[in-house]
C-alpha cells in the first residue's frame, strides 16, 4: 500500500514538473500575463486613481466586484460556521467556584442554577488558571496589535496591506485575549450579537459605497462620482473611495475571524475552551 502511494505521488509530481517546463520564464515580457492589462495598470494607475499602491487600486477599484464578492464569501463563511456549530442547549452539569473560599462546586441538577455574582463564579471542568506572565504580556501587547491593525487598514492605498490583512490582525488580537485569559473574558467584552452585526456591517459598507455611486449617477463602484460629497478632494477621490471600502472589508474580516474562532474552540457553546 505504501509502495502504491509512493508510485502515485512520484507520478503526479513528475507530471507537475513536466508541466512547469511549458511555463514562461521569470519576468518574461512576452508572457501572456504581462501582455494584456498589466501594462495599462502599471502606467495609468496613478493618473486614474491617485493611489500610490497599485495593487490596492487593482484589487478594489479595477476589480472591485471581485473583492466585494470575496467579502461576501467571508461573511457567508462566518454565517455558515455559526449555523453549523452554534449550540444553544445548556450543559447538563454546572461547575461553580465559591469565590471567598475557593471551593469548587459540582451541580448535577440541570435546573438548579446558582446566582453569579460576588459569591459564586463560573468554572469549567478543564479550567486551568491563566498564567500571570502571559496575561501581563498580552495585556501590554494587545493595544499595540490593534493600533498596528488600524495602521495597516488606513495605509492600504499607500503601502502593502489593506482591509483583509488589517482585519485579520485585529481579529487575532481578540483571539490572543481569549487565549491568554479565557474565552469568557472575550465573550463578555465582545458580544456575539455585536460580532454578527459587524460582519454584516462590513459587507454593507462595501456594497453601500457601490450603491451610493449608482445613486450619484455613475456605475456600480465608480468612486469618481462621489466627488460632490467630499468637496476639496476631487483629485484623489478614488483613493478615498478605496479607503472606505477597505474599512468595510476590515470590519467584516475582523468580526468573522473572531466568530469562527469562538464557535470552533468551544464547540458552539461559548462557555469554555482554550
Amino acid at each position, binding site marked *: 500500500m505504501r509502495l502504491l502511494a509512493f508510485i502515485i505521488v512520484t507520478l503526479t509530481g513528475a507530471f507537475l514538473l513536466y508541466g512547469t517546463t511549458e511555463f514562461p520564464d521569470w519576468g518574461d515580457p512576452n508572457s501572456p500575463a504581462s501582455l494584456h492589462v498589466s501594462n495599462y495598470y502599471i502606467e495609468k494607475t496613478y493618473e486614474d486613481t491617485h493611489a500610490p499602491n497599485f495593487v490596492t487600486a487593482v484589487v478594489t477599484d479595477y476589480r472591485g466586484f471581485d473583492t466585494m464578492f470575496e467579502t461576501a464569501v467571508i461573511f457567508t463563511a462566518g454565517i455558515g460556521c455559526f449555523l453549523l456549530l452554534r449550540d444553544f442547549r445548556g450543559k447538563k452539569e454546572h461547575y461553580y467556584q465559591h469565590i471567598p473560599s475557593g471551593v469548587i462546586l459540582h451541580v448535577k441538577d440541570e435546573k438548579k442554577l446558582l446566582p453569579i455574582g460576588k459569591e459564586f463564579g463560573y468554572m469549567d471542568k478543564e479550567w*486551568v488558571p491563566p*498564567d500571570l*506572565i*502571559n496575561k501581563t*504580556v*498580552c495585556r*501590554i*501587547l494587545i493595544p*499595540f496589535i490593534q493600533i498596528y491593525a488600524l495602521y495597516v487598514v488606513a495605509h492600504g492605498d499607500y503601502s502593502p496591506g489593506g482591509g483583509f490583512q488589517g482585519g485579520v490582525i485585529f481579529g487575532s488580537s481578540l483571539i490572543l485575549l481569549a487565549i491568554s485569559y479565557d474565552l469568557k473574558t472575550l465573550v463578555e467584552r465582545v458580544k456575539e450579537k455585536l460580532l454578527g452585526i459587524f460582519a454584516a456591517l462590513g459587507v454593507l459598507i462595501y456594497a453601500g459605497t457601490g450603491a451610493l455611486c449608482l445613486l450619484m449617477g455613475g456605475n456600480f463602484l465608480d468612486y469618481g462620482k462621489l466627488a460632490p460629497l467630499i468637496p476639496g478632494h476631487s483629485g484623489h477621490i478614488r483613493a478615498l473611495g478605496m479607503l472606505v471600502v477597505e474599512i468595510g472589508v476590515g470590519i467584516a474580516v475582523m468580526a468573522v475571524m473572531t466568530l469562527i474562532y469562538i464557535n470552533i474552540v468551544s464547540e458552539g457553546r461559548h462557555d469554555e475552551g482554550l
Partner: protein
Amino acid sequence: MNIIVIALLVFGLFFFLAGGIGIMRMPDFYSRLHPAGKLDTLATLAMVMGLVLYNLNEISLGTILVSIKMFLIVFFVSLASPTATHTIVDAGMRAGLRHWTKKKQRS
C-alpha cells in the same frame, strides 16, 4: 561605521547559527526551547541594531522614522519571544512531559 555594522551583523548571524545547531542537537523538548528562545532574541536584536546603524548613514527625517520602526520591532520581539517560549514550556509541563535525564538515555 560600516565596520561596526558588519561586526553586529556577523554577531547576529553567529547567534542564529548557534541557535539553529542547538535546536538540532539538544536532546529533548525543554532544552531545545532554550536556544530557540534566547539566542534568536539576541540575534534579532544585534542584526536589527546593525541595520539601524546602516540606515542612519545619512540622517534625515525619513531614515530616523524608519529607525524608530526598527527599534519597535526589537522591542516587540524581545517582549514576545521569551513569553512564547515560556508558554510552550508551560504547556509541556501541564501536559505532563517528563524532562530528559542521562539515566533515561542509557536504558
